């Protein structure tokens, strides 16, 4: 237990609306590092796309983040940045939000998987 505590694990970052962020923060995801940079971002109506893009790129560059959870409606705004990210780490997962249900046809991961002619994904 002490050894595990000594080794610092990787983080999960969240980009989404207020309810999504609060939910995952209750789950224990949130952390603000020494530079006062949080690993989550709340997106509302007044958030600019460039701000969202900068935040996503900053999360990509951090070496302590292994998974980025992003609402699909937010992901649609920065689709080109998500498609440009091709390395396996950090993994970018698109999650549904309350107002926008999940659409598999827009998911980059499933779209890439369907490109390999997997019949099980076509069934979905």
């Amino acid at each position, binding site marked *: 237990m002490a050894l595990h505590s000594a080794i610092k694990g990787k983080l999960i970052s969240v980009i989404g609306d207020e309810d999504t962020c609060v939910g995952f923060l*209750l789950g224990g995801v949130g952390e603000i590092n020494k530079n006062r940079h949080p690993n989550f971002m709340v997106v509302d109506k007044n958030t600019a796309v460039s701000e969202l893009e900068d935040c996503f790129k900053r999360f990509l560059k951090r070496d302590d983040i292994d998974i980025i959870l992003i609402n699909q409606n937010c992901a649609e705004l920065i689709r080109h940045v998500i498609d440009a990210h091709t390395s396996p780490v950090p993994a970018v997962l698109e*999650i549904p939000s309350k107002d926008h249900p999940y659409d598999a046809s827009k998911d980059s991961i499933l779209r890439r998987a369907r490109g390999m002619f997997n019949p099980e994904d076509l069934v979905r």
Partner: protein
Amino acid sequence: MAKRDILPIFPSRANSVIMKQRVLAARRGVGLLKRKRDAIDMKLRELRRIRFDQDMHGDEAMRNAIFSMAKANLLGADFKPQMVSRSHVATVSLRRTEIKIVGVKLNTLELETKGVGAFPLAGLSCGGMQVSRIRDSYTKALKALVEFASLEYQVRMLEAASLQTNMRVNALEHVVIPILQNTYNYICGELEEFEREDFYRLKRSQAKQLEAKMAFTELIKTKNMTDEELETYIKRNINQTRPPAADTPFDQEQFEEREVKRRMREARLSLKQRREQERKEAIKRGEPPPPTSFITTHGASLSFAGRQRDPRASSGDLYSTKRMLLSSGPERKSASNVTERKSDTPPRNSQETQRRSSQMSKDVVNEDPPEES
């Protein structure tokens, strides 16, 4: 065969063995890599199916989490701004462990939980039950999403490994193995060429030795023969292509170069004298000298006459051929020549002189036929 398809290796027996081993090793390597590629593809297909199932689980968990959040919003009061501004240390983190799938190292992400959970005092004033339900739902959703992310990572790495292994298989099968096989074939061809060269060279050497041996045998056999024996020998051996081997001892002086040349000079001198006498006799008779056709009278001896034209025939060999041609000539000419010699030189009574004159007459007749023909 193009030069680029062959490795620059000297063709030798040792290199032939080395190249054969390299071909066999390359084929074995291709077999192993193909099996690895097939195993990776099977594992990849399995992981994709698991990822699909996990995606459904994640979607279900997220749906439950969103529903519980909506319910809490309906019941609860304003508690969100406090959490957004006061989270300092994450209570959940990701731990990365390494696993090996079909010889490919992959990382697995596991979710670790520390403490009792974030914000234990949230919702104390109202809606505490709903807040704890939100916490549980989102924790489950996080676990599902982390597992999905881990599977996604593994699938990507396995795809890259499968692609790399396939490239190696194709490179070995279509580039390396043909080059090694061509080199091996080239070396074997060169070695066979060397063997044929050696065999042919030995055969030529053996043929020359056989020719020399046959010529020497004939020379030795005919040295000590008298006229009758020589005539009988020629008649008997015309039908035979190769004479039998003999081991008769012979006198060295008879075949020395100086002795043979001296006899040839005496023979030419006697030939001139004989021609002048024949011309005088013809003038006395008032008739032209009758031409003598060598082919008509000595057709059977042409096989021996042809040997004179062989550039490899030695002087001794030529002398032996002349003796054979002399014995096959008509008896009348030889008899008349011998009579003339005896009448011209009456004072010499020694038998050695008679033997020399008989030999000279033989040479004269021997020289005559080829010029007439």
